[in-house]
Each structure stands twice: as structure tokens, then as C-alpha cells.
């Protein structure tokens, strides 16, 4: 996470009671370009600590003069979404990471099936802009709760016509995964973003119907869950750090001035994998396999036990 950049909030829109959209422009110079599916980390100063949450860029990748993100207010939030919803207004300045893409369109697909659950629509807003510009074949399946998480549904209905398949759970409409996967031509790739339950269901169903993993691309909501407080010790520097219950290990390391390379901050990309030498680990990532977990952990989501200090190879 090298260079940070400063942006100014130039527009804020409340899209639904829980979804707020923010538009940023460069405080000086130009914003870097981005590809569809990219995200940025937004730094939020909360008291003495800084939270970093990753949000998908939902604007048209052809226009990088502005970045747009949409943030869902999370009930069990550690304060990031609440901060953006309640404290950030037009004219404010924020720090962002440069864009990274862990969820790109597949270059060889001849048909794209996009499946969004709730706020998981955000990366697909950029996808759709790009796919429409290319004249590519695609369809969007968008499951949401009406008047709560249905941000962009009206805009999408207008832009996409019958390529949009909307499922409003408040009206009892359900996304039928088996039906969606049936009858897709050979060049099809599937992309999903939404709650873990949706992603798990989709992957399981896809596998059973003979879709190899290489056709199924997904992005989970990346946010560390709180846990118990624990201690870490850094083997190389001898530094000792307390990780409080509501901070991730990665955040605690950053607060102590220890930089660990990272991208998604949600246990999926593998970028922050760090070796540990001793101690109990509660692995919460979706990346490392059992063999790797024997000596590595992902500090963005995983935590140590409270009984003894965790010794990291840092």
C-alpha cells in the first residue's frame, strides 16, 4: 500500500436509507485511471486510530476525473461506514489508496453473467459501463431488499432493459441459482459480489453443475470481524503490540508503524500473508490452505489467541 492520495468530496447522495454514495475528485493533480472491478482503500481517522476500508469504484472506468463509491451503513460496523455516513460532507478531504483490481473482467469470456447481492452491485456498475461501451454480451442478476438495498435499480432498469433480472426479497422474489446457471453458452463467465451466503451458494451450485472454478469469479465484502484482544511480539524487532478487540492485527501493526503489504483487507487476496513462529492462530481468511496455515496467517482478518502472545516473523 504505497502511495496515498488526497481527494476532495465533491458530491454526496443518499440513495436508500442505508446506502450513501460519495464522489471524489483529486485535491491536486489527476486521479490515476482504473479498470472495472477496482477498489480503493479509504482511510478514516477515528480518534487515535485510522481505519482503512476497501470500496469498489463504481464509476465509468473511461472517466477517471472522478471516483465514486457507495457505502452501506453496517449495523455491526467498527465505525468505518458510520464515519462515512455521518461525518463526511461535501468539501471534506479524505485520503485514499491508489486503485487496485482483484476482480477484473475475464478477457476471453464471450458472455458475462453478473450476480449482485445488495451493496454487492458496486463493482458491477463499473463493469456495466465497460461492457456497454464494448458492446459485449452480458446479463445482470441483482438481488436486494426493496427500498433498503436497492441502490441503482431504477437507473439499471432504464439502462439495461431485459438484461436486468431484479429480485426484491421484500416482495418475496428469490434468485434461483440453478436456473441462472442452466443454459449458458460455452464462453460464459460468472462474476458474483455479495454476502458470503450468496457466494457460497453460487459456488456450490456451479460446481455441482460442472462449472470449473476458472469460470466463477467472486468478490466478498471485505471487512474484519472483531474478536478478543491479544498480544503479538515481532521476532526481528522485538516489538510488542497489544491488539484490542475491535482492531484487526493488520490495523494494530500499522498503528505501531509496521507496514505489511496489503490490498483487500478482507482475507481474500493473500497479499498480507505473514509468517508466524509461535502461538495459537484463529484463521479467518479465505485464501491460505491448511498446509500454509501451519506457518502463515493473514493479519487483515485472522487473530491470535488470548492465552499467549503470537510471535510474528517481522
Amino acid at each position, binding site marked *: 500500500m504505497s502511495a496515498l492520495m488526497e481527494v476532495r468530496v465533491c458530491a454526496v447522495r443518499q440513495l436508500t436509507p442505508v446506502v450513501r454514495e460519495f464522489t471524489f475528485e483529486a485535491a491536486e493533480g489527476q486521479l490515476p485511471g482504473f479498470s472495472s472491478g477496482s477498489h480503493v482503500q479509504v482511510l478514516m481517522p477515528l480518534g487515535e486510530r485510522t481505519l482503512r476500508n476497501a470500496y469498489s469504484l463504481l464509476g465509468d472506468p473511461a472517466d477517471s476525473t472522478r471516483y465514486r463509491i457507495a457505502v452501506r451503513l453496517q449495523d455491526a460496523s467498527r465505525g468505518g461506514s458510520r464515519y462515512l455516513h455521518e461525518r463526511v460532507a461535501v468539501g471534506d478531504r479524505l485520503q485514499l489508496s491508489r486503485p487496485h483490481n482483484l476482480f477484473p473482467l475475464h478477457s476471453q469470456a464471450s458472455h458475462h453473467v453478473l450476480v449482485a447481492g445488495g451493496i454487492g452491485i458496486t463493482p458491477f456498475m463499473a463493469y456495466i459501463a465497460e461492457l456497454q461501451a464494448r458492446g459485449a454480451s452480458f446479463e445482470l442478476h441483482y438481488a436486494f431488499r426493496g427500498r433498503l438495498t436497492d441502490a441503482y435499480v431504477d437507473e439499471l432498469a432504464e439502462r439495461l432493459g431485459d438484461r436486468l433480472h431484479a429480485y426484491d426479497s421484500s416482495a418475496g422474489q428469490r434468485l434461483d441459482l440453478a436456473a441462472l*446457471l442452466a443454459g449458458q453458452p*460455452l464462453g460464459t463467465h460468472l462474476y458474483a459480489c455479495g454476502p458470503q451466503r450468496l457466494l457460497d451458494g453460487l459456488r456450490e451450485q456451479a460446481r455441482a*453443475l*460442472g462449472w*470449473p472454478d476458472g*469460470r466463477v469469479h467472486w468478490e466478498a465484502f471485505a471487512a474484519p470481524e472483531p474478536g478478543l484482544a491479544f498480544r503479538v511480539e515481532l521476532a526481528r524487532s522485538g516489538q510488542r503490540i497489544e491488539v484490542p478487540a475491535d482492531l484487526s492485527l493488520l490495523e494494530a501493526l500499522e498503528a505501531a508503524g509496521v507496514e505489511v503489504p496489503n490490498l483487500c483487507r478482507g482475507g481474500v487476496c493473500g497479499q498480507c500473508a505473514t509468517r508466524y513462529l509461535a502461538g495459537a492462530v484463529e484463521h479467518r481468511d479465505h485464501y491460505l490452505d491448511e498446509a500454509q496455515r501451519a506457518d502463515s496467517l493473514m493479519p487483515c482478518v485472522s487473530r491470535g489467541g488470548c492465552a499467549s502472545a503470537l510471535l510474528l516473523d517481522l
Partner: protein
Amino acid sequence: MTASGTDTIFSKPRYRTAASPQPARRRLLVAQDAACAVPLLDHPAPALLLSLGGELAADIQQERFPSPAALYLRLQLLLEQAEVGTRLYVVGDETFVWHVYRLARHAGLLGDEIELIKSGARRRLYCVHCATFQDIGEEGEANCSGCGVRLLVREHFSQRLGAYMGVCLDPSRPYGEDRP
């Protein structure tokens, strides 16, 4: 089809000896010689067998073609109509299975959806000097049918070309003997 291990070059193809039990909605079997398709009949049986001849006493739908070109055309039409969930099993010599592989990839199948079983010694050689393809057997050296250079058959295999790379064997003889 995985390439791993430390003793051989990464790109050298490894072939299956039997079908894997991967789930699929439709299984297509393509065989140079139908008799060689026997190991692929277990695991959920394939829906259809395309072959260039040979006998296979099995209770599946079979289509036989007089030439490779006719078989390739039929397969191409089948794949154009096919849906995701289709798995393709190919049995034959390397020249044959890689031709089918490239055709299937072009039609939209992923490498993970295609299983290759080698039967027979024929393989394709690509001369890196004059870009000529020719069929060879298991020999490790060959004369290029295009430029006449004596070629060393490298283990390096190009999936894109469906061929092994042939490079000049003797740097002191960079041209073919019978070259004018």
C-alpha cells in the same frame, strides 16, 4: 493435464490415464480409435462418442467419421450449441488430441473442462527456423521437411501451436544439406 515435477520441463504435457470424476451435465467423448475409449466409459457414461473408426461395444450414442476434417467440423457444431457444464474427453495420439484441444478452447471450453488421454506415438513438430509443421514419432531428432535443417526435438511443448519445438541440432550446420 497438469505439468509439475522437477525432473521434466514444465511445458511437457502430462496425460490422464482415465477420466476424472468431475461433475458435468454433459460428457462428450472424441476418439481417434473408438476401441481406445474403453477407459472413459466408467464414471458417469458420456452422452456421445465421436470417432474415426474402430469398434466399441458400449451402450452409448456413437457417430463415426470418414476423415478428421469431418469429425472436427461436427465437433465444432456441437460445441457451438453446447452449454457450460459440458466436459470433453479426447483419446488419440498427440497430433490428434491437441488439434481437438485447440478447437475446443476456441469454442469456449476451458482447459479444466478438457481431459486428454494419449494413445499412439504420432506427435507434431514445429521448426522454429522456418515455421513448418510436420508429424513425427517418438524420435528425438528429425530433418525439417521445410528447410531441411537437422532438428533436435525439444521437450518444450506449445499448447498454442499443439507442437513440440524443433531447433537446429548442430550449430555448425545451420542449413539443410539438400538446400540449393
